[in-house]
């Protein structure tokens, strides 16, 4: 019992090893923020004046064999099998493993899955669609019942767009960042149980479209995959393309702004809640329970979404686009900023805890087994001893993300904003982007 509570304490300290990153040096943050500012205005002032990105129509086709292999039933079957086996492994540990932090469930769920989705999508594109165990289960059920997996009882109401996905993402970050008992196994059991239920009922109702709109992990993966150099062209070929072209093809669905706001707002909140500033405030005012942290997390997300929307809609005089459609039209430009900040915030955790989890996965039931031969692996402390490399990587990730975001926003501005307003119209957005980037750097400095 003592071990139990001791172990539970430990993850509250964030990261299974207990250590958090050192703050980045102040001068790095200042240099990063300055670059972000200069880049933004340089892009607005000197870059192209006619939209050059062509979204999904762009890209250099890879040899036909690549498309054939990627689309082959064998590849699909293999990836589905991998996803299902991994999920099965996870579920066994979730249901039958010990309620201890040494259970691989926690590291798998909060770090390997959540953080790992980003490098997976950046390197390989939207593969979650195929790995997704819920999609595979839905497919299997449809086969059993002889129904078409794409068809549900009714059509998905497209005006909802990605809103269910945004809600799901918020539910995940709430569990990860707010819920005080998130390292008790019953919390993960409850969340995953609810997730499976909602995915299966939703897909039975609306067909597999449900996953693309409501599965938080798929929504996350699809959005991040738009910053990868791989994609599918409108003619069906797998192509390699400029990530900015890829990003340009992200559909401006309803709810995309909410998705982006939750992803960025929650990552910022994660930095904020660990800062001495917030720790001291919450202890001085004896903030206990989860109501206030929930509101603060929600506040971060609403602040991000609200500032962004107001800035985008602030353009005076309109052309062919409705003002209320503008935020979704520009939301893609925040995606690289999110990815950059996510890398900065989670890189060391991913390396350290990811390796530790790999070790724990060898013993899913806590019986001392070594099923995968990885039992000896502990937390990787590489970044603990390469402080400068980590700090430089963080600032570079944030600045590169900002730069891509500024380019994406500029191209969209010269396309959709009315003639004569393209440059002035993007200034509020650029300022908000600089605010996000500088705010992110400040949190890396102060936490």
């Amino acid at each position: 019992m003592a071990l139990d509570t001791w172990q539970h304490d430990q993850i509250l300290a964030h990261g299974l090893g207990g250590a958090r990153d050192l703050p980045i040096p102040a001068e790095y943050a200042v240099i990063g923020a300055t670059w972000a500012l200069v880049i933004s205005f340089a892009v607005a002032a000197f870059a192209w004046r006619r939209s050059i990105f062509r979204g999904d129509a762009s890209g250099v086709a890879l040899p036909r064999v690549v498309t054939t292999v990627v689309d082959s039933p064998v590849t699909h079957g293999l990836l589905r099998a991998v996803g299902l086996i991994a999920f099965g492994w996870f579920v066994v540990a979730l249901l039958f493993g010990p309620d201890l932090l040494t259970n691989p469930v926690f590291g798998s769920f909060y770090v390997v899955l959540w953080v790992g989705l980003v490098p997976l999508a950046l390197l390989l594109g939207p593969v979650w669609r195929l790995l997704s165990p819920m999609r595979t289960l839905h497919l299997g059920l449809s086969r059993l019942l002889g129904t078409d997996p794409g068809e549900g009882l009714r059509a998905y109401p497209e005006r909802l767009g990605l809103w269910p996905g945004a809600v799901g993402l918020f539910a995940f970050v709430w569990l990860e960042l707010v819920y005080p008992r998130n390292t008790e196994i019953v919390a993960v059991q409850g969340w995953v149980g609810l997730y499976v239920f909602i995915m299966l009922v939703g897909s039975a109702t609306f067909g597999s479209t449900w996953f693309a709109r409501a599965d938080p992990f798929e929504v996350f993966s699809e959005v991040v995959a738009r910053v990868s150099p791989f994609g599918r062209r409108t003619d069906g070929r797998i192509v390699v393309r400029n990530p900015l072209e890829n990003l340009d093809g992200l559909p401006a669905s309803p709810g995309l702004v909410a998705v982006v706001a939750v992803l960025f707002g929650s990552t910022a909140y994660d930095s904020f809640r660990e800062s001495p500033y917030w720790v001291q405030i919450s202890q001085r005012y004896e903030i206990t329970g989860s109501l206030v942290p929930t509101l603060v997390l929600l506040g971060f997300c609403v602040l991000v979404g609200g500032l962004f929307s107001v800035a985008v809609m602030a353009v005076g005089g309109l052309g062919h686009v409705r003002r209320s459609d503008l935020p979704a039209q520009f939301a893609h430009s925040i995606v690289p900023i999110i990815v950059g900040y996510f890398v900065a915030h989670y890189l060391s955790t991913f390396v350290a805890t990811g390796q530790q989890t790999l070790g724990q996965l060898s013993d899913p039931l806590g019986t001392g087994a070594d099923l995968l031969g990885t039992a000896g692996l502990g937390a990787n402390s590489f970044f603990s001893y390469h402080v400068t490399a980590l700090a430089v990587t963080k600032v570079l990730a944030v600045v590169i993300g900002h730069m891509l975001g500024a380019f994406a926003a500029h191209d969209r501005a010269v396309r959709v904003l009315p003639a004569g307003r393209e440059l002035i119209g993007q200034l509020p957005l650029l300022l908000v982007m600089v605010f996000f980037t500088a705010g992110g750097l400040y949190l890396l400095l102060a936490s």
Partner: protein
Amino acid sequence: MRTSAARDLAALMTVAVLALAGCGDDGADAASGSGSGSGSGSASGASAEPSESPAESPAESPAEGSAEDDEAGNAVEVQVTISGGSTTPAGERITVEPGQTIRLTVDSDVADELHVHADPEHAFSVKAAKGQVFEFAIDTPGVYEMESHETGNQIISIQVQP
């Protein structure tokens, strides 16, 4: 012309960022707090020597203070009080070097346990007594939290800065 305007803006923002950064640092000094000097007879930690009182320089940051000392005396002193369910310090950041000794002097009115979430973890059993002294050090750079197990409060965070 445009570029120089952008530079001015950059400079302005630099100032803004620095000004903001100031907010986060207030707490660091308080943790070095004055030793209570209430004797260390009931020490259950490893420390044999009586806790010295660095009371003369409460505003000095612990890391700077210790950097000048020689190896024997370079422990960072932290006075911890657990009283009526509240804990002081209340989440301040202290900065130490890897391997540098951190010496806690604890006054408590209840039995509690202090946890330092480092690898290896440190756990100290606190009794309802004054002047209990505990010592530990952390070798791996990073930021670590020390919590009171009973209240769940974070007492300090320890920045191990190489």
